[in-house]
């Protein structure tokens, strides 16, 4: 079970906005083995959702994947595209970024599938839940009946039919078989009375049930990789526990691979085999769960873990990370460790952008921090006001994590221009 299913190398996703280029994801490496649960954890605006969407190819303009390779292990696909795109194939791996869009599109649902954070807004309120799931089943069935054609999926959904669907009940497009399958799926995710529930509308479901329904929909194409983007953030703890149990069970049953995006370290600890911690568009530390939770090197990981109030014992003061999530605008990202301005252990060495170093845990453990190679030394520490007082206090001129605002922050950018060229691409 140690075969890789997905390898992401040097992935960069940029958004070209009026305010400038936003480096949502930079030079990201990720490896996922078949049948495991990999977590990506980070604060809002750290680029974790964009990473997930890049993998499943859901980046829309003004966003663009500018660099990198996404190798997907699927022998059938490799055979199918080997003739037309030899450079995109390496053994049983296919580089998804080098095959045409239609091929990538045909993988959605059958190979990759996604569940979103907010179940209430992810369903169409005017169609019954059963119908929506059946539609997903239908699309997948048409696709698998004709695997190489991507047209098969869409031909039934022509413009004329789309317009007709506004007057005719859309059930017409869903065959009885897909409906049966939809009910099976609803049963699989633990919805009681699936037959009747299938005919109800999303507003008749509770949040937890809708999240289950969304999981059912994602399972329609029996995907190899399920990308779960904050699947439990909108739910209460008792319901969260139910949904996590469900994902656990489904994974045991189907051997599905899960890429779990979350900001909740508890959820990561509960679900994942391996974890990547994201900050400012990069994975700053990755490794097995033990590497990251017990043997972490990066001060950001330390700070993140230190920020969580402990449930087991009444704590003293929390140890928060000072400051706020940084801007991801390209011209405001100086060439240094992006965390240095909030880092309690910033040293002169941090003024050049760190590459990934081996961590001290298992072979999997990689850290983007100079502390992996040297001890922290007071002598080389940066003075507390090196980045300007503003950065150290809670003052933040970059309220919008997506970077859609045009405030400039001259001091910080200028003060670090002399930091010599690091490993930044």
């Amino acid at each position, binding site marked *: 079970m140690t075969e890789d299913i997905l390898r992401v190398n040097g992935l960069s996703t940029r958004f070209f906005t009026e305010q400038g280029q936003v480096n949502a994801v930079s030079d990201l490496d990720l490896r996922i083995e078949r049948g495991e649960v990999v977590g990506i954890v980070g*604060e*809002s605006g750290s680029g974790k959702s964009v990473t997930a969407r890049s993998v499943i190819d859901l980046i829309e303009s003004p966003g663009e994947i500018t660099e990198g390779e996404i190798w997907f292990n699927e022998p059938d696909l490799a055979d199918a595209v080997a003739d037309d795109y030899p450079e995109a194939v390496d053994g049983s791996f296919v580089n998804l970024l080098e095959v045409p869009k239609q091929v990538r599109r045909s993988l959605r649902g059958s190979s990759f599938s996604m569940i979103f954070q907010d179940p209430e807004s992810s369903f169409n309120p005017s169609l019954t839940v059963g119908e929506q799931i059946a539609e997903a089943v239908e699309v997948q069935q048409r696709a698998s009946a004709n695997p190489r054609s991507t047209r098969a999926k869409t031909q039934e959904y022509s413009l004329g039919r789309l317009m007709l669907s506004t007057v005719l009940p859309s059930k017409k497009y869903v065959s009885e078989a897909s409906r049966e399958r939809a009910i099976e799926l609803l049963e699989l995710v633990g919805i*009681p*009375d699936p*037959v*009747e529930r299938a005919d109800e509308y999303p507003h008749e479901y*509770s949040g*937890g*049930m809708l999240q289950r329904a969304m999981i059912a929909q994602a399972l329609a194409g029996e995907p190899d990789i399920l990308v779960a983007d904050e699947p439990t953030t909108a739910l*209460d*703890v*008792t*319901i*969260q*526990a*139910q949904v*996590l*149990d469900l994902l656990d069970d489904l994974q045991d049953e189907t051997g599905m691979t899960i890429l779990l995006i979350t*900001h*909740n*370290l*508890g*959820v*990561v*600890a*509960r679900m994942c085999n391996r974890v990547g911690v994201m900050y400012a568009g990069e994975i700053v530390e990755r490794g097995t*769960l*033990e590497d990251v*939770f*017990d043997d972490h090197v990066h001060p950001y990981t330390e*700070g*993140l*873990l230190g*920020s*969580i*109030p*402990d*449930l*087991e014992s*009444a*704590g003293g*003061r*929390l*140890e*928060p*990370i000072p400051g*706020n*999530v940084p801007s991801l605008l390209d011209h405001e990202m100086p060439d240094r460790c992006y965390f240095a301005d909030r880092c309690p252990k910033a040293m002169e060495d941090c003024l050049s952008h760190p590459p990934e170093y081996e961590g001290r845990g298992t072979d999997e453990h990689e850290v983007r921090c100079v502390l992996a190679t040297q001890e922290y030394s007071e002598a080389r520490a940066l003075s507390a006001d090196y980045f300007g*007082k*503003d950065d150290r*206090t*809670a*003052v*933040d*001129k*970059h*309220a919008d*994590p997506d970077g859609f*605002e045009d*405030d400039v922050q001259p001091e910080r950018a200028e003060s670090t221009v002399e930091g010599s060229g690091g490993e930044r691409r």
Partner: protein
Amino acid sequence: MSADDPLVRVDGLEKYFWENDSVLDRLLGDDPVPVRAVDGVSFDIRPGETLGLVGESGCGKSTTGETVLRLQEPTDGDVAFDGSSVYDLEGKSLTEFRRNAQVVFQDPFSSLDPRMTIGGIVTQPLEIHDWPWTDADVESRAELRTDGISADIVSVTVDDDVDKLVSPVDGVATVHVTVRSSDVAGDVDPDERGIAEAEGAVAEVAEDLSIDVERGDGIEVHVSVGRSTKQLRLDRARDLLERVGLSVDQLDRYPHEFSGGQRQRIGIARALALEPEFMVLDEPTSALDVSVQAQVLNLLNDLQTEFDLTYLLISHDLSVIRHVCDRVAVMYLGEIVEIGPVDELFEDPKHPYTRALLDSVPRASTDERDRERETLSGDVPSPRDPPSGCRFRTRCPKVIPPADLEIDQETFRELMTLRERVESRDISLETVGDEDEFDLEGGTVVAADADAFARALKGRLLETELPPRHDEIVEDALASVAVGDWEEATERLREEYESVCERQNPALEADDHPVACHLYDEEAGRREAPAPER
């Protein structure tokens, strides 16, 4: 008020929202349906403590917070603040209550007016309450110290309105003035407000006031507020912003220029502006990232110590509650099920709901995967039609079986869930059995098939095997269901399996760690419940 008296006493508070209550509905003769958001909660908040109110969404915790502050009028019950009922207040005393009790809202993005500057937002409460306050009855007095100058030649006059900035003690606002000769005092910055120089004499006031010195026959010192009301308010806003960790040059900025954590700090500064005694914190950190949440929690902690604040902290996040609170009240479906000191409640939770809630929180540690957890099934029932008796009984893993029922707890839980579904007629008959095994005519099975049908249905509804006697009862009841006689089935099952949990709503005992659960109800415990296994 003695130190032991509660600052806030909530007594049987109820807040219902009514549905189908419009004029049209009345004309059509629809009965209004109450949504029992808060259904009889009672608790005390002692001065200086933090009481946590925790529960799942929809359990009524925010409504409780709002009703306590009289932002909502209650349906019934009373809240006493500092000994007097909040709902009886009028005019001046109501204004005073509004000043003393403040709120910080959950969403820092919608609780600040996007068209107002930060300065405007923080000074607005000051304007509304006409701060700074001055009282004509308060006397102003100066305490004079001299250094290098004889006290006899110094005369001090103090404006009557310095109590705007100097809080009076026993009806007297005292300002502290020091007059020194220039030799002793050294250089004086002429721009500084609290210090002034005239011909060799330097006068200084310790409070945040303005001072003037004139030298005629003697030394005449005059202490005044020296600033316009507007300036005073801006200065106060500046102090507050600094106190909550924002830089003071941001008064002219707009909320959209700040991040979530900073906006929450602005919200806190606004709540602090009128020097309240009591603050309701309604999910103050749930919109924030963990690292920022930790900053805000630390800030709230510091402010509490500094200003002697009393908090009611509403949160769904148990780890936040554990970190910040002195005592905790756990709410479920409009009722408080358990209140206790934070350590006791977290280390030794009594109510099955509290236990399940604690079990459900994933811990950020590598042992999490192997942790034993008991999670709840099902959703929170609707507050429109809450379950009879104990409201948690529909999900409770420890629901109490009638005496001498020889089945184990888990099976009984399953039976209760089955009963629940029979009672709410929430079982679909169409899908029972293999395809076309049973004929459904008008939604019911023909009598001849009823027994076979009941067996099939039982197989679908129950996971565990029942002892023969109970097997018979259940099949009997399901056979009634099969022929469409739901009432008969309901009756049959109730007769056999009615639990004390559905007959009586357990009361919150009056002790240090009250819990509303029949497991701790001594009388009931002796009569029909097995001793709680702990």
